[in-house]
């Protein structure tokens, strides 16, 4: 493992070195012979790199980009050459077409997971090519879109370097701000852990589709420029190998930051050009060299530099200085959410309905009944312990409440509202926050960002406010950040705010998870083994904190094996065994309960 990391470091040096050398060679070459075409090529590839970046950064391996590039290229070629539109009008139209196709394809295809998604998008690319070949009247068919099929190159050849630079700059602007926005955080969160993202109120399906459509639109734009750079296109320009090239830009350059794919496209475009300039084509082997280097780089990077060449996360964390004045304990992000006021007891109204009610909830997995006909109610403002031997169904129950699983039978009500069958992100929005038995933080994000993700549902911004830099955007982001810092302060985590979550100790990570869940302003907080991995001191502090939450009016359900902790904080304990509820009572009674004792120690 260590050698692997060392090799990775050297590999990074080698690749950067290679890039530097080729850039230098390229620069010399360019000053002698300003061949704009090579520059245009790089710029188009950089745009393609960004198109694959959007999906990779959301954790989707889509090979559809060559197909969307084809759609963009042909749409624009037809609009310009046959309909007679000017290029600047055909560009947005072609992008729109790609977006619509992307949506139509994305809706069904994005239900598939990794390998299947990759393969089905690959199939999509091939279908696009078959369609091109079989519609000669529109596209020129196998003969391509060129002079002989009615696409005069005078009209086609319109891509200018300034347009590409402008467009790329525009994209970079979009990506720069996207990265810092609610949407950008949501996309990254989904990549790192889509399950946890959903329980933070992020609509995973929506954002996946958004990323896919964005990717389609950008690839389509690249296709438009490609068509108008070449002046003559045919179906063979958009083969599977093109999809692989595009993928290489992302994988090689990096999939965590928008600059990565630009770097990747740069390396893979400039290197062959430099080799051509340095060696010419006199030595036969050199003609294969760029291709071999491409393959080798892909292989080595995947093995030794997972995440790609450019992974700036560790640098990025430094760029967020936090000043004390920013930290406000009692600032709410939006007015409708109650402010969190330290220490003030908000007791439940005596006659209140139970906050959470389960009625005959049953869930089976392939013949095994994990949760068997469970009913209970949890009144507002209490702490409820949930215990039981291994495999008794505790975590399954939590997953049912948070919508990760849906019950086979029974109903789940939150404040009297039926939430059975709702997707996790809606349940999160309705006010149930949770933590996980196996910590599911977004490891590539800072502690602060993790908590800000928790505010997702309450930040009222969208892509327009992000990209137009509306005041609302800045205000909401600042408020979310302030409140997140406030939460961190209360949990004693302020010192870690700008560190990557993965660098924290286990106990601290648990507390970050709690802070993240609290950022939802949940009416109900579900903690799944919050003390696991904590030492005694940390556990005691945790107990204190849970009690503080209760005083502030939160309702908390805790699963825990540290039985002392449960006994100490709970108002009420529910005991499960074999998926059935065997007891629900105050702690002292539970300890005496014969059934409970038997569940734990076996029959005498």
């Amino acid at each position: 493992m260590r050698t692997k990391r060392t090799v990775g470091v050297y590999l990074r040096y080698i690749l950067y070195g290679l890039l530097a050398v080729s850039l230098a060679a390229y620069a010399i070459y360019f000053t002698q012979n300003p061949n704009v075409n090579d520059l245009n090529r790089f710029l188009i590839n950089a745009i393609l790199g960004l198109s694959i970046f959007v999906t990779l950064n959301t954790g989707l391996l889509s090979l559809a980009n060559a197909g969307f590039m084809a759609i963009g290229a042909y749409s624009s070629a037809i609009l310009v050459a046959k309909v007679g539109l000017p290029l600047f009008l055909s560009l947005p139209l072609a992008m729109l077409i790609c977006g619509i196709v992307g949506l139509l394809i994305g809706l069904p295809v994005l239900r598939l997971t990794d390998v299947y998604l990759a393969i089905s998008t690959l199939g999509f690319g091939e279908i696009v090519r078959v369609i091109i070949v079989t519609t000669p009247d529109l596209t020129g068919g196998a003969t391509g879109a060129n002079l002989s099929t009615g696409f005069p190159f005078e009209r086609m050849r319109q891509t200018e370097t300034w347009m590409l630079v402008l467009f790329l700059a525009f994209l970079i602007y979009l990506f720069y701000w996207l990265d810092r926005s609610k949407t950008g955080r949501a996309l990254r969160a989904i990549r790192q852990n889509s399950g946890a993202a959903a329980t933070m109120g992020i609509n995973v399906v929506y954002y996946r589709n958004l990323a896919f459509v964005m990717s389609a639109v950008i690839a389509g734009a690249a296709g438009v420029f490609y068509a108008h750079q070449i002046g003559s296109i045919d179906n063979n320009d958009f083969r599977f190998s093109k999809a692989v090239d595009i993928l290489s830009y992302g994988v090689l350059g990096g999939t965590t930051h928008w600059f990565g794919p630009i770097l990747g496209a740069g390396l893979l475009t400039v290197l062959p050009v430099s080799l051509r300039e340095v060696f010419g084509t006199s030595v036969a082997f050199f003609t294969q060299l760029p291709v071999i280097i491409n393959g080798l780089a892909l292989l080595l990077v995947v093995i030794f530099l997972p995440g790609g060449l450019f992974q700036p996360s560790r640098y990025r964390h430094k760029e967020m200085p936090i000043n004390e004045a920013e930290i406000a304990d009692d600032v709410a992000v939006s007015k409708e959410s109650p402010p969190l006021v330290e220490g003030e007891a908000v007791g439940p109204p005596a006659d209140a309905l139970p906050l959470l009610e389960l009625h005959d909830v049953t869930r089976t997995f392939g013949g095994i009944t994990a949760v068997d006909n469970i009913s209970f109610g949890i009144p507002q403002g209490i702490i409820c312990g949930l215990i039981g031997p291994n495999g008794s169904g505790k975590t399954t129950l939590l997953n049912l409440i948070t919508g990760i699983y849906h019950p086979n039978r029974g109903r789940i009500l939150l404040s009297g509202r039926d939430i059975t069958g709702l997707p996790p992100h809606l349940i999160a929005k309705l006010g149930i926050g949770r933590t996980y038995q196996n910590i599911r933080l977004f490891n590539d994000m800072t502690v602060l960002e993790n908590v800000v993700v928790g505010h997702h549902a309450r930040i009222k911004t969208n892509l327009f406010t992000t990209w137009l830099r509306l005041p609302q955007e800045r205000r909401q982001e600042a408020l979310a950040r302030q409140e997140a810092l406030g939460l961190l302060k209360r949990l004693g985590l302020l010192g870690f705010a700008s560190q990557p979550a993965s660098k924290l100790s286990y106990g601290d990570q648990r507390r970050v998870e709690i802070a993240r869940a609290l950022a939802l302003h949940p009416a109900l907080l579900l903690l799944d083994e919050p003390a696991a991995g904590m030492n005694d001191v940390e556990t005691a502090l945790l107990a204190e904190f849970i009690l503080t939450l209760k005083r502030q009016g939160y309702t908390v359900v805790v699963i825990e094996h540290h039985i002392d902790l449960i006994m100490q904080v709970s108002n009420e304990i529910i005991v499960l065994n074999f998926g059935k509820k065997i007891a629900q009572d105050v702690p002292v009674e539970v300890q005496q309960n014969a059934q409970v004792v038997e569940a734990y120690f076996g029959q005498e």
Partner: protein
Amino acid sequence: MVDASLLTNPVYLLQNLVDGLARGAVYAVFALGFTLIFGVLDIVNLAHASTFMWCAFAGWVVMSLLNMPLIVGLLASMLFGGLVAVVLEFVAFRPLRQEGAERLSPMISSIGVSIIMVSLAEAAFSAQTKKFPSGVLDPKPLYIGGTDGVRVSWGQLLIVVVSIVLMVALGYLIRRTRTGMAIRAVAYSQRAARLLGINVNRVVVITFFVGGVLAGAAGILIGLLTNNISPSMGSDIELRGLAVVILGGLGNIEGAVVGGLLLGLVETFTIAYFDQGSDYKDAIAFIILFLILLIRPNGLFGRQEANRA
């Protein structure tokens, strides 16, 4: 125009059935090794096609340059395929398996290896198409029911027989032998396999070897059938092979064969019975692939993903 009399002609129907099966057998043979690696190791090995291509060249070197008979060529090609696949395992897959990398990383590294292998093949053999020596197969077909009846060529017969033999042999290996049981144990859960005293790494190497041997058999047979050996022959059949593997359910050996035959039949019947059907036959593979993935994400004969540990 498809003549109306053809639609009802029983000989034509039978002939297309035979041709469709033979066409499908080609896909099936290619898909076998592909699906084996996925079934056991959960890896979409996109370098399978390049291994296949190199094996065809290995067969060509042995048979054309060294003038060896078919059987030697076949064995050499199979052995060579096995060895190449083992190298792939060490170079492209093992380093990724050891560190719990992302599930898609092996697929990407296999793409990298594949690029290198194709370039090397171009450097070594040039992109020029290579041919096997003629006379390996008798060009005269067999006739069932006289020369107006159904025709089967030796090549078709060979590929169908081989695809079935390979399927049965692979089935036997997987189901009836100790090694096969170990392979299945590893496929189900590497952890459980380890606890049974199985050396998982060795089983993985064996699996790759077997996958490579299958690629070798496919390489030389398809090379022989089309007599068209070139560095791009892998990528030409790769996408179709992938469609077959999906159709049969990734990792399902019988499924791959049935899927291959099915695709062969569907393509054949589309060409045979639809006006201009041949224009659309390529789309068919991918439209089927697309639809199946949407309706049954694990393939037509796929098992439940939940079974995987």
